[in-house]
């Protein structure tokens, strides 16, 4: 069967969007010493079949997009983080302890399908 051409304009394709999480906005600045916030980012956009080979896609995304092209009931491949990086947080608990902790996978560096 003929594969349909991509419907999504470029700006709607799966990619990383900027998202800054401000601890002040959340009221957590009262006990988080540093950082003041961090660039968490997020992934959003479409993963059309014809572009699954160029959008950092997994083999499975390719297969799912192929199946979705055949059967529109099957959901499209999903735009997800494929590379994440950690952040460190310095905060204070209720016992006046100062704590430095490292949290893995907090920042989206790259997105894919």
């Amino acid at each position, binding site marked *: 069967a003929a594969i349909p051409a991509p419907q999504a304009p470029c700006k709607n394709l799966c990619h990383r969007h900027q998202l800054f999480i401000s601890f002040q906005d*959340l009221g957590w600045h*009262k*006990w988080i*010493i*540093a*950082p003041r916030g961090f660039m968490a980012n997020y992934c959003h956009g479409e993963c059309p079949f014809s572009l699954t080979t160029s959008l950092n896609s997994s083999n499975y995304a390719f297969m799912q997009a192929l199946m979705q092209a055949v059967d529109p009931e099957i959901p499209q491949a999903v735009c997800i983080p494929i590379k994440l*990086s*950690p*952040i*460190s*947080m*310095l*905060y*204070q*608990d*209720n*016992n*006046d*302890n*100062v*704590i*430095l*902790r*490292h949290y*893995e996978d907090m*920042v989206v*560096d790259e997105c894919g399908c």
Partner: protein
Amino acid sequence: AWGQTFQFQDSVFIQFLGLDKVPSPQKFQPVPYIMRKIFQDREAAAAAGDSQDSCYVKDLGVRGNVLRLLPDQGVFLYSKQLSQASCCLEKLLYFNLSTTKDKEQLTMAQLGLDLGPSTYYNPGPDLELALSLVQEPPGWGRFFPKPGKVFVLQTVPWPQGILHFNLLHMAKDWNDNPQKNSGLFLEIQVKGDRDPGVDSQLKDTCARLRRSLRASLLVVTLSPEQCGPSSRKRR
């Protein structure tokens, strides 16, 4: 409804951080240089995209993914000994290790004693520090240092910086058996023969030392969930 959802997420985030409830500190505690440096180095490495082993604290040379600075919650003691010429200061040091989770493995416990600022032009006398384990919890205004259990005895020339002592073995014991944690007894004496004529000056020095003394315990722990063999394999 939005508020309720947000409160729920707040509590989930608190648990994620390993806390029981939202902290509400009255004032921020000072952050020691080493913790600030480790934080800044990690931020710089993350910004540069350098991969880091989050389960190894390079600056301290130990494995671990959580650093805690526990403030001393002990009290000064005013015994008859203090009126003796050589005894300058007596203090019970107490560190609450209860915030360390059961599964966490202690890899470092370093006592820091900051004796306060010193003046180069007006150096004080040499000091002798003795640290011993407290045998019983303080009660009825009395405490009992373990006889013959002085485990740190150090002479400190004045002026001095922050003194560090390795308490890993002891902290592990306290962590495994919290009922054993009755604290430490710190005694500071003035060393050597002294001229009785300088007694008042010495009293001032000791009073200043009591005001400026800050003790804290830097504890590093390793979470098996984050740093166990399976997580290493995953990474």
